[in-house]
């Protein structure tokens, strides 16, 4: 179980990007973190994985615990060893590596004996990749690269998988595929923290959801409740009760004010 309490993150020593974020990812669940651009979703992930210092960020206050052990002081290799796997925004596969090499580098911290079994598992999960083991990864399509990035993260057998916008830039059909894969991975026993802009997809598979706005959690409810929430439907799902209405009637500022008070 991952618990974050009162997390404050500062970039460049002055820019406060997270203002006391608390969230929990229980074992075996999928938890969604929603938010508009710049809300602070990626800093949450970077704080968990120890990648803040690469971006001149630092944790000022708060704690991050994985199964009761504090992990907020660990560097990135330390968090991987602690059992956190991540798929970074924009896939970030090694384009000049073959698919096989991309997966093997994911097992860098893993026990050597587990590599072959995990390769088999990933190739069963993503049959498309199995056909192209020796091909250079840069030639894969966007969806296949996303699958490769997820597979690479799974090679280290993480307890918790962090996914940063896995649907980014993918066709709706591929998004469906990725969605089903996330469910399958979760059913195999990995907890998932899903960071998304595609709220519809994310809320349909998760048990719990958090909404982040300008560095604060403004909503923290079961996914089913969030799906039916009037504000979430309007701002994140693009739906209104009365159906299509003029944008002139949308009173963003009033609603937002109510959230933040």
């Amino acid at each position, binding site marked *: 179980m991952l618990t974050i309490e009162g997390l404050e993150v500062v970039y460049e020593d002055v820019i406060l990007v997270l203002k006391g974020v608390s969230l929990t990812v229980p074992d075996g669940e999928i938890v969604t973190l929603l938010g508009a651009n710049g809300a602070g979703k990626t800093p949450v992930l970077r704080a968990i994985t120890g990648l803040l210092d690469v971006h001149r960020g630092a944790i000022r206050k708060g704690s991050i615990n994985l199964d009761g052990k504090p992990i907020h002081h660990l560097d990135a290799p330390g968090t*991987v060893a602690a059992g956190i796997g991540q798929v970074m925004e924009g896939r970030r596969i090694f384009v000049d590596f073959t698919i096989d090499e991309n997966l093997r580098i994911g097992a860098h911290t893993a026990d050597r004996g587990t590599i072959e079994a995990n390769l088999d598992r990933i190739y069963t999960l993503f049959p498309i990749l199995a056909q192209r083991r020796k091909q250079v990864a840069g030639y894969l399509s966007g969806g296949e690269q996303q699958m490769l990035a997820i597979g690479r993260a799974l090679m280290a057998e993480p307890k918790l998988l962090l996914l940063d916008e896995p649907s980014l830039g993918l066709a709706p059909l591929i998004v469906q595929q990725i969605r089903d894969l996330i469910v399958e991975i979760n059913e195999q026993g990995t907890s998932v923290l899903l960071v998304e802009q595609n709220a519809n997809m994310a809320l349909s598979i998760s048990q719990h959801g958090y909404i982040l706005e300008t560095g604060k959690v403004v909503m923290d409810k079961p996914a089913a409740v969030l799906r039916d929430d009037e504000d979430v439907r309007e701002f994140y799902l693009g739906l209104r009760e009365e159906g299509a209405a003029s944008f002139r009637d949308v009173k963003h500022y009033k609603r937002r004010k109510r959230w933040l008070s």
Partner: protein
Amino acid sequence: MEALIESIMRGLGQGSVYAMLGLGFVIVYKGTEVVNFAQPALMILGAFLVSWFTFDAGVPFFAALPLAMLAAALLGAAIERIALRPMVGQPVFSAAMVTVGVFFALLTVATRLIGTDIRRTGDPWGLDVLLIGDVRLFQVDIAKLVIGVLAFLVVGAYFKYSRSGLAIRATASDQETALAQGVKVGRMFGLSWALAGALGALAGAFIGAGGVGFEPISALVALKALPAIILGGLDSIKGALIGGLVIGVIESLSRTYQPGIAPWLGANFDQVVPYLVMLIVLMIRPYGLFGTPEIERV
């Protein structure tokens, strides 16, 4: 005809030494984006280590070679840890300047250690020749070529199949993503330098081989690895091998034929030829034969 074959073989031998040095340059450049000007000093210290192990410690040459490579690898890793690690995140130009400083520091140490005499490495080949018909090939040149190619095969397999080799490549490709896979990036920088040190010592063992011996100033020979890697492409391992061999052969051919064909160019013109090649490459194909063209979108 015999003269031509003999000249080419001498060039291939010398070119292998440039290639080994070039490989050290390329590994550090790929892994850490720093041009390592300390490589010539690593080579001359490696040569001294081989010489010390064979003559002062009494170890046979083929045992002294791996021992010297190991010592030079440790030295390379130590240089990275002490001098280069604090430069992480700083402009690569500054880091390159640090390596220039390291070069002079190490060269001073080497000068002190080697002294004023010409030292020998105790290699078994000396001036022995292999006679094929009327062609006289120096055994040392054949040894240089064989061991040079072998070194490339070993390094190539290391990068392709080993866990740490893969991690060095991942670091070279995208440091943040490598970190996210659990790769200890700093350790990979150290490993790159250790490899460069070992290759420097391997090249050093051959710089004084074949009965010529070496002195501190022989370190400047290693600078000819720069034309080699610029010809081959700064970030290409294959390029280092081919660039090294081509530069070696061109140099050797001009040493054999230039005094006869173009005596007006003066004596020792062959010393300049590698740098002429480098200038021409930089003018028409700045990324070399196998390097990645740098595309900058404005």
